[in-house]
């Protein structure tokens, strides 16, 4: 407030109210906000044109991705000939939407596998990046909501889809992602992530593009319909009650064994130690002791 008052001049200082500076600041903020809301939609509308989106995506790409993937998405190799960042020509918009939309890219640091983490870009930026990468070479597009959403299914259709989706899932996905989709270990420190609670769109895109070490289940052999059936099976798994008690993540013998050995046997051992440590003794002696008889002698 002081600097506002000072700008008004020394003479006028005593004529102004004490809150004048505050009001002036408020007015300026409101004016700026109004002006922004008036201009901002116009900018967003203009950004939807393809060429501009690609250009915006390229800018983002050069800042965030080109360090590993090369300035034109051509990929980079290290001295040993290993992929430092794989080429992105032909991976398509779907791959970008999956990798950036789940936060796997940009990679925080060199690692065996990119983990899922907080998403770094907002949806418009992801769209722009996807548009730029798609412009590098033909590849799978981001699927439409009708491809992966199971909302429109009738209950009979859904039931059929769950049964078939289950067969497809158990044949193709269970090997790595576990029979409940809980994920599992892969060679050399890699892992197949859990696919429970993941947005259907990203499940669809993962099958379509084969991120990281995962093989592709392209539309030619696994039709969009089959992919949707897998998604409805996964959705059904979420609403499937655990009749037998705690499922412990459906990780099979590993989690169940840990539970039994650490918690089960561990608490029994702890209980036994506690029993042995608890001894109440008294300094008094029984009446028989004063007469000169000990239980030991009676036993002998």
């Amino acid at each position, binding site marked *: 407030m002081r600097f506002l008052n000072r700008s008004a001049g020394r003479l006028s200082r005593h004529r102004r109210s004490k809150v004048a500076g505050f009001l002036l600041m408020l007015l300026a903020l409101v004016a700026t906000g109004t002006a922004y809301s008036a201009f901002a939609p116009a900018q967003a509308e203009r950004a939807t044109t393809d060429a501009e989106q690609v250009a915006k995506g390229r800018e983002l790409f050069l800042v965030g991705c080109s360090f590993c993937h090369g300035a034109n998405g051509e990929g980079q190799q290290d001295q040993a000939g290993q992929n430092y960042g794989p080429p992105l020509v032909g991976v398509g918009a779907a791959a970008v939407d999956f990798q950036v939309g789940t936060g796997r890219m940009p990679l925080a640091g060199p690692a065996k596998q990119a983990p899922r983490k907080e998403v770094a870009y907002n949806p418009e930026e992801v769209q722009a990046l996807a548009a730029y990468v798609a412009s590098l070479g033909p590849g799978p597009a981001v699927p439409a909501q009708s491809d992966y959403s199971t909302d429109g299914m009738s209950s009979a259709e859904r039931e059929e889809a769950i049964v078939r989706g289950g067969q497809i899932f158990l044949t193709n996905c269970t090997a790595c992602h576990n029979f409940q989709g809980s994920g599992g270990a*892969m060679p050399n420190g890699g892992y197949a992530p859990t696919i429970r609670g993941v947005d259907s769109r990203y499940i669809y895109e993962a099958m379509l593009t084969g991120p990281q070490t995962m093989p592709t289940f392209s539309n030619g052999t696994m039709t969009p319909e089959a992919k949707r059936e897998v998604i409805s099976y996964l959705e059904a798994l979420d609403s499937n009650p655990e009749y037998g008690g705690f499922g412990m993540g459906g990780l099979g013998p590993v989690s169940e064994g840990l539970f039994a050995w650490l918690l089960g046997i561990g608490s029994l051992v702890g209980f036994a130690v506690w029993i042995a440590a608890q001894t109440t003794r008294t300094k008094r002696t029984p009446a028989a002791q004063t007469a000169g008889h000990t239980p030991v002698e009676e036993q002998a």
Partner: protein
Amino acid sequence: MTDVRDESTAVERRTDGTVATGGPIADPGLPAHTWRPTDVDPAAEKRAERQVAGFFIASMLCIVAFVVSYFAFDIGGNHDTAAGLGASTLSLGLTLGLALVLIGVGVIQWARKLMSDHEIVEMRHPARSSEEDRAETLAALATGTEESGIARRPLIRNTMLGAMGLVGITPILALRDLGPLPGDSLLSTPWKAGMRVFVDVLGTPIKPSDLEFGTLVNGQPAALYDTNEEGEPLYEGVDLQVAKSKGSVILVRMEPDSIIPGEGRENWAVDGILCYSKICSHVGCPISLYERTTHHVLCPCHQSTFDLSDSAKVIFGPAARPLPQLPLTLDDEGYLVAQSDFNEPIGPSFWERDAT
């Protein structure tokens, strides 16, 4: 030789309260015996008695509750009564578990409060029997051998051994009824020259253009989806399961540059598409843990790892042989078909495997 067990109870209590034994160590340093409240106070003793009985009665009540909840709650119904657990599961588990725990707690309370707790010293004693016992046993054996004449009459001894040995054959012979002998069925699979590769579950043929680089397809021989003239499936029931277990394949497409063609296998791939048996050559687990970046496929059972770009050679784990490969080609309509059956019998080793 004196019986060492006698020493174990030869304990005398000295006037200072410490315990001395008559064993090799005069005073092992056992502390003086102290008493529990239940030893000296009849009221405490009575209370402990009631406690123990109380635990046992509580256990009985739990069993009653178990029986009641068995009939009261629907199995599978009310499946998220508490913490996502069903009423039936929860109450049956809790009541039965508590009943068992209460019996255990009662027994321990009984032992610790009421059963006598005086110290007993038991000396180690040699495991060897005494000389007299040993001589006596040997003499009895010698007498038995002499009187039965088993050493003098080899005819009787040998025929008896023969008869007993032959009885052992009967259960071994009966093992044959476990099923028909496999014959040469292990040597072949449903795959034949010109049979299309179908996508498992979906049952559709595959064109190379359907497969992008990095694609994995779990495949089956087309015959499994085929019907005869009367419209009935060629394989049904057990036959279908057997055919599936032998015919399952994994089909992968990789950049043709990354393939190291095996000797005589140069034309087994179509545009970088390779086809291998899905059955691990170690003990026959179905495997499809495929990494598109390394072209390795891992068996989850025993971690055998195969390099599909290099004729599925074993690069890690207990498997002794590469996965059998199915030579591929295209038919007139451009679909992927087998050139022949697998190059060798699929699955784990068996005795007659190398005889062919």
